[in-house]
């Protein structure tokens, strides 16, 4: 008798639990999808949808850099190289400021170490390249005297975030895309 009861109880359980599951999925036919259609059907450029702290590709503002090399020392995987030299008059020259973004693991330790805010994370992330070597970014075009540590309240004006890396990795970023947002469709640029 109990076997028969269990037989029918199993049928009842199966039918109702399956129907209940089905009611969940059917109800989703009548709810709005949560997808955000990256990259071209977002309200704004995706970079703007990221939170402030988002750790994107590194960029270095050489006009702020004092060439102290703390970032390179802190980097756990040695993806930053800072070199200095002397010019003819014997003054200190900043000769090299390279970041291998192909190696960078976006931990942010260099940014924390930097005393002047010269190295920082942008919110750019679309650095796709055909060859990984191309992600070696040289931020210094020519040797220049390193910046002086700024006095309080006299910090130099800051460049718009993302503008440096965009100019250093040309072609990596897609051209201005059609965004549902409209006029400010130029992602990440100086708005």
């Amino acid at each position, binding site marked *: 008798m109990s076997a028969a009861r269990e037989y029918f109880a199993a*049928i009842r359980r199966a039918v109702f639990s*399956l*129907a*209940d*599951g*089905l*009611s*969940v*999925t*059917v*109800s*989703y*036919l*009548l*709810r*709005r*999808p*949560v*997808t*955000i*259609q990256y990259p071209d*059907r*977002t*309200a*704004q450029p995706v970079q*703007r*949808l*990221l*939170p*402030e*702290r988002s750790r994107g590709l590194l960029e270095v503002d050489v006009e702020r850099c004092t060439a102290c090399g703390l970032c390179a020392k802190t980097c756990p995987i040695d993806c930053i190289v800072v070199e200095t030299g002397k010019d003819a008059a014997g003054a200190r020259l900043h000769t090299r400021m390279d970041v291998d973004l192909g190696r960078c693991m976006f931990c942010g330790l260099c*940014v*924390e*170490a*930097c*005393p002047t*805010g010269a190295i*920082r*994370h942008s919110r750019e992330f679309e650095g796709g390249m055909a060859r990984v070597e191309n992600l070696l970014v040289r931020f210094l075009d020519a040797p220049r005297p390193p910046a002086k540590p700024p006095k309080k309240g006299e*910090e130099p004006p*800051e460049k*718009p*975030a993302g503008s440096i890396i965009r100019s250093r990795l040309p072609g990596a970023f897609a051209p201005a895309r059609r965004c*549902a947002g409209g006029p400010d469709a130029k992602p990440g640029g100086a*708005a």
Partner: protein
Amino acid sequence: MRALAEYLAASWQLSPLGRELLSAGLILLTAIVVFAVALLIAALLTWLERRVAGRVQSRVGPNRVGPLGLLQWLADGLKMILKEDVVPAAADRPLFLLAPYPVMIGVFAAFATVPFSQLLIAADLDVGVLYLIAVTSLVVVGILMAGWGSNNKWSLLGGIRSAAQIVAYEVPAALALLSVVVMAGTLSLQSIVAAQGGWPWEWYLLRTPFGFVAFFIYFTAAVAEGNRTPFDLPEAESELVAGYNTEYSGIRFGGFFLGEFANIYLMSAIASALFFGGWQIPGVTPAEQVGSVWWQALGFLVFVAKAGVGCLVVILLRWTFPRLRVDQLTALCYRYLAPGAFLCLVGNALWIVLVPAGSLFERMVGYGMTAVAAALGLWFVLRMRRHMVSTGDRLDLDLFARGHTRAAFDPAWQARAYGRFRRRRPGEAS
């Protein structure tokens, strides 16, 4: 079809040979039309499947090729045709190459007897139901060929699972169909449809309690025969990689794929014809339909809509349920479905004998069953509502919504950019 051939032959005054040729040509033409229609249906079903799956999963689904992504199937088909048709070096070549054909033949040949409307049927066979059961069994041959011919162990396991499954589920499917045949007293699909009526209580589904149960048994068994979730063991992705079609690529894979989708429509169409009154329009008798093109067209639409709902349910099942295990699959068949189907057959047979046709009792049962079905539907809708309310989601009837947009995190973020990159001392607020 034969009538048409004779009519044309008579009007064109053809010789006996000409008659034969004409008749053969017409058959060929019909076959091509049936094949094309089945292909088109299968292709559109792939679109439906992907859109429904998308929406069910809070996604959007294909929406880039053509309006609403409606041409996605064309792009996919083109892609499949252009892809290389790889044959593994160690495969049993002839078996491997031929395997998709039995699958496609098995499904597409069955379309010949689908009564799309009162007149729109390629061949209204006297043995329609038997023909259907017989010809769809061909699928298993193709899958076994694919499983063995691939010379891949996952494929072999898939093929063997499939054989066990399809052979097992033939039994309840056939018995459930026969319980309708008993009621109608004919094997011809058109006659079975004609024996029902347009109103729900005139359908075989709701005319007797046995028909109601038989429908669910048939539907379950048909899903199993079509290798659809929750019975998709032969191609169980997470277990057998892709089962019998692991080694297939290009258009040969497309053959299996289209066969599967055509099969969904086929099973829904059969269910619609046998249990849901097919093309019958409420309040319009078959005799009234014959003369009018408009009634015919409406009947066609009614049929397609009923079958379409069936397809939708099959698709939703796939995106809802996990799959059974091999032993549970056969246990379900032999412990629950097969005895149930047999009881339905016996029950319907007794019903015919004991309940006089057209009696008040029969009508009352019909009304009662309809009320029960409506109550179940209401329960289902209330459950849906409950889920939506409990998670705080809103009803959104825009079925083709393009998804969400998210506001920017903070429009003034750039103004604060410097502060956030400044090095912070321990304890300093960020």
